[in-house]
C-alpha cells in the first residue's frame, strides 16, 4: 500500500512540478549516509525527480568525485581540483585539501548505473536509448517504472520500444499488486533476453528458507508458462549456437596449435616463441592493410588474401633463421631449448613494441568479413568466425597433404622416425630440420592473420595463446595431427558448453584442470606414438 502511494506521489510530482523547480539541496545529503540502504533510497528519490542535475550528481558519485563540505551541509563535485555545487552547478573555487570524496561499493554502483540508464532514456540518439533500455532489464528498482512508462509513450523507434516494454514488464514484477505482476510475467514471454529468463526463474524458485520467492500462485504460474515458452523457442538455437562457438574457438586453437604440433610434435622442439609467430603474422596483416590502403584502395577488401602469403613467408623466414642461428645448437636439450625460445619471445615482443608501439594497432575487417547472419533470439553468427573455421580446415588439409603426400613430407617423417637411418639414405637432415621449422612457423603466421580478424592486435597477442596451444598439443599427443585436431575442437567445445554454466574464466580454469588430470591418466596424450619415440 505504501509503495502504491509512493508511486502515486511520484506520478503527481511529475504532473505538478513546474519545469523550473530546482532540486532540493537536502535530498542530496543522504547520499553520504553510512547505511547503504539509505543511500540507495536517496538515489532512487533523486532519479524520480528527473532533474537535469541528477545525472551529473550520480555520475560524480559513481566515479567518486562527489563529497560533502561545510560539515556535511553542502554536496559538491570536484573535478581537477575545482569544486562545483552539486545541486546548482555553480562554481565554488578550489577544493580544500581536506576534501574526501564519498566511496561507493558494487551494490551502489549497480544502483547508480540503473538510475543513469533511466535518465538516458530521454537521449535523442536511438542507440543510446536502446543501450539504456537494455541496461534497465536487470534492475530491481520499481521506482524507475514511471520513467520507463513515459519513455514508452514517447518512443518512436520500434526496436527501442520493444526493449522498453520488456524492461517495464520486468520492473512491474516488483509491483505490490499480484494481478499486475502476473500480467507482467506473461508479457515477458515475448522476450529473448537471457536476463529475463534469470528474472523469471528467480520468481518460480524457492528461497533458502524454503518459501517461494514469489508469494502469489497466479504470478508463479504465469512466470512458469513464460519461462517454458522462452526455453522452447530458444532451445535448439542455443544448442546450435554453443556448438558453433565451440567450433569457432576450436578452429582458433587449431590454427594457434597446428604450427606447434609440427615443431614440437615432429621435431621435439619446445618453441615458447610460437605465440610471437602468431603476433608477427597479425602484424604482417596490419602492414599489408596499410600498403593496400595507401596504394590499392580499390582492392582494399582483398588485403586479407594478400596478407596470407606475406605472413607465411615472413614468419617462415624468421623461423628458419631462428632454427639455423640458435636452436640447432640445442638439439637433444629440450629444457634449454625451452628457456632459449622464451628469451627469443621476449626479444620479439620488445622489438614489436619498439617498432609499432605498446598500444594495440587497428586491423579492420574487410567488408565481406564484417556483419553476420542473424538468427532467432537476437543472436548473430559473424562472417569472420565462419571464415576462420573454413580457413582452419583448409590449412589443416594443406599441412596434411604436405606431410603425407609430398617428397619433402616423406623426408620429414623419415627424419622424425629415425634420424640416423634417414641421414644414411641421403636425406639432408639439417635442411629438413630447417624446412620443418619454417613450415611450423609459417603456419603460425597464417594463424596470426586469422587472429587479427577477430581480436586485438598488440605486442602481447601471442602470450595469450601460448599456454592454450601447448595444452592442445599435449592433450592431442605428440607427433599426431589427428590428435591435435581432436584436442583443439574438443577443448573448444568443452569450454563453450561449460561457459553458460560457470562463466568464461571458470570454464577456462576447469579445462586446464581437466587437462592436468587427463595427462596423469594418459601421459602420452590422446594418440600416443607406439614404440621407442614414446619415451621422449
Amino acid at each position, binding site marked *: 500500500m505504501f509503495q502504491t502511494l509512493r508511486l502515486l506521489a511520484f506520478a503527481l510530482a511529475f504532473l505538478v512540478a513546474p519545469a523550473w523547480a530546482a532540486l532540493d539541496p537536502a535530498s542530496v545529503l543522504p547520499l553520504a549516509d553510512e547505511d*547503504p540502504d539509505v543511500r540507495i533510497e536517496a538515489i532512487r528519490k533523486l532519479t524520480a525527480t528527473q532533474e537535469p542535475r541528477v545525472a551529473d550528481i550520480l555520475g560524480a558519485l559513481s566515479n567518486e568525485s562527489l563529497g560533502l563540505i561545510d560539515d556535511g551541509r553542502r554536496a559538491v563535485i570536484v573535478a581537477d581540483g575545482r569544486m562545483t555545487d552539486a545541486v546548482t552547478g555553480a562554481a565554488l573555487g578550489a577544493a580544500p585539501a581536506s576534501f574526501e570524496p564519498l*566511496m561507493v*561499493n*558494487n*551494490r551502489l554502483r549497480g544502483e547508480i548505473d540503473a538510475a543513469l540508464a533511466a535518465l538516458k532514456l530521454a537521449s535523442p540518439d536511438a542507440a543510446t536509448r536502446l543501450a539504456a533500455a537494455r541496461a534497465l532489464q536487470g534492475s530491481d528498482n520499481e521506482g524507475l517504472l514511471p520513467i520507463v512508462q513515459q519513455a514508452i509513450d514517447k518512443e518512436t523507434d520500434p526496436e527501442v520500444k520493444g526493449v522498453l516494454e520488456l524492461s517495464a514488464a520486468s520492473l512491474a514484477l516488483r509491483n505490490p499488486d499480484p494481478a499486475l505482476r502476473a500480467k507482467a510475467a506473461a508479457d515477458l514471454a515475448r522476450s529473448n533476453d537471457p536476463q529475463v529468463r534469470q528474472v523469471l526463474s528467480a520468481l518460480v524458485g524457492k528461497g533458502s528458507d524454503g518459501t517461494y520467492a514469489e508469494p502469489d500462485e497466479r504470478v508463479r504460474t504465469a512466470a512458469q508458462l513464460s519461462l517454458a515458452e522462452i526455453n522452447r523457442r530458444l532451445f535448439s538455437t542455443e544448442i546450435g549456437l554453443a556448438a558453433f562457438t565451440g567450433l569457432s574457438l576450436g578452429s582458433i586453437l587449431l590454427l594457434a596449435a597446428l604450427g606447434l604440433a609440427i615443431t614440437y610434435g615432429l621435431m*621435439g622442439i*619446445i618453441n*615458447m616463441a610460437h605465440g610471437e609467430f602468431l603476433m608477427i603474422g597479425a602484424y604482417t596483416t596490419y602492414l599489408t592493410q596499410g600498403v593496400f590502403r595507401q596504394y590499392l584502395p580499390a582492392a582494399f577488401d582483398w588485403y586479407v588474401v594478400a596478407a596470407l602469403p606475406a605472413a607465411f613467408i615472413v614468419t617462415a623466414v624468421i623461423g628458419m633463421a631462428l632454427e639455423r642461428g*640458435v636452436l640447432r*645448437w*640445442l*638439439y*637433444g*636439450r*629440450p*629444457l*634449454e631449448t*625451452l*628457456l*632459449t625460445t*622464451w*628469451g*627469443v*619471445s*621476449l*626479444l620479439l*615482443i*620488445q*622489438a614489436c*613494441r*619498439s617498432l609499432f608501439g605498446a598500444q594495440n594497432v587497428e586491423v579492420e575487417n574487410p567488408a565481406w568479413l564484417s556483419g553476420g547472419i542473424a538468427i532467432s533470439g537476437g543472436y548473430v553468427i559473424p562472417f569472420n568466425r565462419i571464415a576462420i573455421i573454413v580457413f582452419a580446415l583448409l590449412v589443416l588439409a594443406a599441412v596434411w597433404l604436405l606431410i603425407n603426400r609430398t617428397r619433402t613430407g616423406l623426408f620429414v617423417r623419415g627424419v622424425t622416425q629415425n634420424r640416423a637411418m634417414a641421414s644414411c639414405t641421403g636425406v639432408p637432415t639439417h635442411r629438413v630440420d630447417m624446412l620443418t621449422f619454417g613450415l611450423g612457423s609459417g603456419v603460425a603466421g597464417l594463424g596470426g592473420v586469422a587472429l587479427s580478424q577477430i581480436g586485438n592486435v598488440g605486442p602481447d597477442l601471442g*602470450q595469450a595463446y*601460448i*599456454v592454450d596451444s*601447448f*595444452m592442445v598439443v*599435449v592433450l592431442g599427443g605428440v607427433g599426431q595431427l589427428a590428435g591435435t585436431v581432436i584436442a583443439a575442437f574438443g577443448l573448444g567445445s568443452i569450454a563453450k558448453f561449460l561457459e553458460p554454466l560457470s562463466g568464461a*574464466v*571458470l570454464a*577456462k*580454469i576447469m579445462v*586446464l*584442470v581437466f*587437462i*592436468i*588430470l587427463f*595427462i*596423469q*591418466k594418459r*601421459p602420452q596424450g590422446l594418440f600416443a606414438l607406439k614404440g*621407442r*619415440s614414446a*619415451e*621422449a
Partner: protein
Amino acid sequence: MTRLFTPKAWTAIFAVAAVLVVLLPTLHLALPESHPLHVSSFWITLLGKFMCYAVVALAMDLIWGYTGILSLGQGLFFALGGYAFGMYLMRQIGRDGVYKSDLPDFMVFLDWKELPWYWVGTDSFLWALVLVVAVPGLLALAFGFFAFRSRIKGVYFSIITQALTYAAMLAFFRNDMGFGGNNGFTDFKRILGMPITSPEMRTALFVLSGLYLLGALVVARWIVTSKMGRVLTAIRDQESRLMFLGYRTRSYKLVIWTIAAVMSGIAGALYVPQVGIINPGEMSPANSIEIAIWAAVGGRGTLVGPILGAFAVNGAKTWFTVAYPELWLYFLGLLFVLVTLFLPRGLAGLAATVRARLPGRPAAKDVQAPVAQEVVS
C-alpha cells in the same frame, strides 16, 4: 660422505651472517640519514626482497639443477605463501581500512557480510605460519604425487606446471575467490600489532630474510651432500638406470619437489610484508620462467650460483627499469639465449673454468660435472 662445508666456507657464511644481522641493521638504524655510511630504507627493502628471491632460486636449483625437473610453476608456491601470510596482514589492518569495517576492504566493496570459511583463524599469527607452510606444501605434494606417479617428466612436466600456475592466476583474478581479485592484498598496517612501515620492523624483516637465506643454504647443502642428494643427481643424469637398480625414484622426486615448494612459500611470506603488496600477477607464467633464469645465470648444480644469479638478474632489473625501461626485456631475452648457448654452467661454472686455467692451481672439485644432456628418443 662429503663434509657439510669446508672451514673456509663456514667462515664465509658467518661473515655474511654478521654483515646481515649486525652491520647493515646498525648502519640503517643507528646512523642519522645524513651520515655517509647510512644505509637507506630503499636498500634495506631492496636487499630483503632479493634475499627472498634468492631462496626461490635455491629451491629451483634443488629441483632443476640437482634433480633435473624444470618447474615452470615455482612462482605459484611463492605467491601462495605470500597470499597465506597476506591474509593475516589483511586481518591486522582491523578497522583502519577505507571503509572502517572489520572485513577487509575488498569484501566490503563486494558487499560481503562475513568472512568466507577459509579466512577463519587467519587473524592468528601462528595459524598464518601454518598456512604459509601447509598451503604450498600440500598443493605440491598432491600435484607431485600424481605427476610423478604417471611418470610425467622433462618438458611435459614443465608445461603442465606452467598450466597449473596459469590456471591459479586466472582463478585468483576472480573477485569471487575471496582474495581481492585483480588488486590482491595491499595497504598493510601492522604485524603482531606493530606498525609495518617502522624502520625497526623493516630491519627485523630484513634480518629474518637474511637468516632464512643462510638457513636455506645450509639445509640445501645438507641435502645435496647426503645420500639422498646423490640419488637426486643420479635421477637427473640417468633416471631409468636408477629405477632398474631398484630405487623408487618417484618418492625422492616427490620429497625434493615438496621441500622446494615449501622453501618458496616461506620466501613468499617474507617477501609480501617487505614489498607491501601481493596480487595474482605474481603467478603469471612469465614470473616463474624468470626464476629459472636466475638459477641458470648463477649456475645450476651449484648452491652459491643461483643465489648470486638471483641477485645479479634482479639487480640488473632494478637498474634497467629505472634507467632504460625499454631495454630491460631485450637484456632479459638476450640473457636467456646467451646463457643457455654459451654459459650452460652459469657464472659459477665460468668462475671454476677461470680458476682451473690459472697456473699452479688444481681445478675446483666443488663444482658439479657439466649439466647432464638429456637424451631424447
